[in-house]
């Protein structure tokens, strides 16, 4: 009996010692190139991204690098006009963002480069608890950002349920390229008074969880709340004051509240279709903030296996938002042609704060070239429709290729 016990103990010890041996690190590099082009020569973006991931004993370290080049003619918010009653010298004096043609101030030419670097570490502290933490920094000619985040995830003993809570802090610096200043909010652009760089601090918190519903379904529910304080205006956006015949009388700089409280509720379900290798991903988000923006987002993906190594993934997304409380398409003028400005001092004609409907359709194709290499390519078409903006619509084509290699 004692012989058997000692043999069992020996066998157990050898199993345990085999388990505690350090595993070899597994490496993975994922690269992607994206082209985003809007119709009518508005905004064009080329994005290159690389993500290096190292996994060892369930510790996962990811390092992420991003390089963007952006160019085009961005809407300023000014009323479209070929005959203005005022002399307007441009949205900004910076080299990276200059005024458009001489007769229409509703768009402004720009060209910029953005770089971003970040890391994320996922570290199990016990069989059921994982701590994630990371940091990200980005810079462009008129915007600097640095942030950090930490999250705690605990699984239930049966591993069917997990609970996550996390917090992130982001510190942004905003200014006009070239001058390095910000214009006086709601100031007349012909008599611009400049201030220093704008600072904005943001805290985001998240609570959520996942649950395995059955052998074919997993669900996620997440609640986000974010509070930001500081400079929220866009130093390039302007608002026109027009007379009854739509002639521009004056243009004013963008002016937004100094704080913003955002909340969102996000739910997602992933479900296997019958007894097949196909699956569907469905998500829905409800968003609300104290600027008056309310939005709903529905997203649907169908993952269809074409063969053991290939798949196709159609994608549909719908989005609808209401306009911000301080969104104005234009200011009216009184009988003496004096602009009637808002009494609370907040106004923006940024098309992104207008009520809008947005729809995306896309298709993705993926193939495993071999055991170590995956290739993906996808195309998406984004169509936005605005309730008030002069341009009415914005359409864009997204093309993306990705290559992942494990070693």
């Amino acid at each position, binding site marked *: 009996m004692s012989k058997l016990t000692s043999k069992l103990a020996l066998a157990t010890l050898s199993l345990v010692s085999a388990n505690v041996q350090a595993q070899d690190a597994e490496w993975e590099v994922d690269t992607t190139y994206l082209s985003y082009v809007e119709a009518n020569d508005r905004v064009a973006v080329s994005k290159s991204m690389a993500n290096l991931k190292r996994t060892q004993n369930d510790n996962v370290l990811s390092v992420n690098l991003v390089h963007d080049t952006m160019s085009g003619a961005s809407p300023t918010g000014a009323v479209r006009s070929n005959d203005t009653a005022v002399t307007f010298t441009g949205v900004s004096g910076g080299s990276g963002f200059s005024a458009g043609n001489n007769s229409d101030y509703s768009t402004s030419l720009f060209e910029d480069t953005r770089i971003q670097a970040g890391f994320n570490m996922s570290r199990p502290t016990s069989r059921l608890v994982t701590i994630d933490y*990371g940091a990200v920094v980005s810079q462009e000619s008129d915007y600097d*950002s640095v942030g950090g*985040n930490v999250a705690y995830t605990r699984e239930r003993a049966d591993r069917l349920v997990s609970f996550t809570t996390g917090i992130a802090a982001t510190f942004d610096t905003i200014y006009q390229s070239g001058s390095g200043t910000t214009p006086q909010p709601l100031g007349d652009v012909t008599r611009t008074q400049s201030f220093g760089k704008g600072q904005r601090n943001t805290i985001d918190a998240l609570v*959520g969880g996942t649950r395995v519903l059955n052998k074919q379904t997993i669900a996620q529910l997440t609640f986000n709340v974010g509070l930001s304080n500081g400079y929220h205006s866009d130093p390039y956006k302007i608002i026109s004051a027009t007379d009854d015949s739509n002639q521009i009388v004056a243009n004013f700089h963008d002016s937004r509240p100094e704080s913003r409280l955002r909340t969102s509720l996000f739910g997602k379900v992933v479900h296997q279709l*019958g007894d097949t290798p196909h699956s569907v991903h469905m998500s829905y988000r409800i968003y609300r903030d104290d600027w008056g923006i309310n939005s709903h987002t529905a997203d649907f993906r169908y*993952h269809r296996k074409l063969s053991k190594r290939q798949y196709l993934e159609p994608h549909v997304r719908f989005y609808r938002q209401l306009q911000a409380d301080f969104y104005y398409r234009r200011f009216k003028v009184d009988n003496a042609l004096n602009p009637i400005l808002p009494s609370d001092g907040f106004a923006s004609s940024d098309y992104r704060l207008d009520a809008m409907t*947005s729809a995306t359709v896309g298709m993705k194709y993926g193939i495993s070239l071999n055991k170590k290499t995956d290739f993906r390519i996808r195309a998406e078409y984004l169509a936005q429709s605005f309730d008030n903006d002069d341009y009415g619509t914005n359409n864009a084509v997204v093309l993306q290729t990705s290559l992942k290699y494990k070693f």
Partner: protein
Amino acid sequence: MKTTRFIKPVLIAVCLIGMTGCSTKGQTLSMAETKPWHLTKVKAWERGTLSRDDMQLVTDDMDLSIDDHIYFSKEASTGGSGIQGGGCGCN
């Protein structure tokens, strides 16, 4: 009111597509075996399907990061499944 009018058909469409199954090779995949909303106790050895790459809540980190950036730049809403990100002075 406008939002409600827009959202209702979207929800109905998504539910119909998701719940009635998709046609393949002339057959209808009915999902009759397990409805998505059926709660069952899943044993560790019954999670083969759930461990598939396509059954993860995030199947492609790159796509998620890029989509977040595009919609952050073009819409007024942010947030969702995660909190990590990088700011931008997007046009």
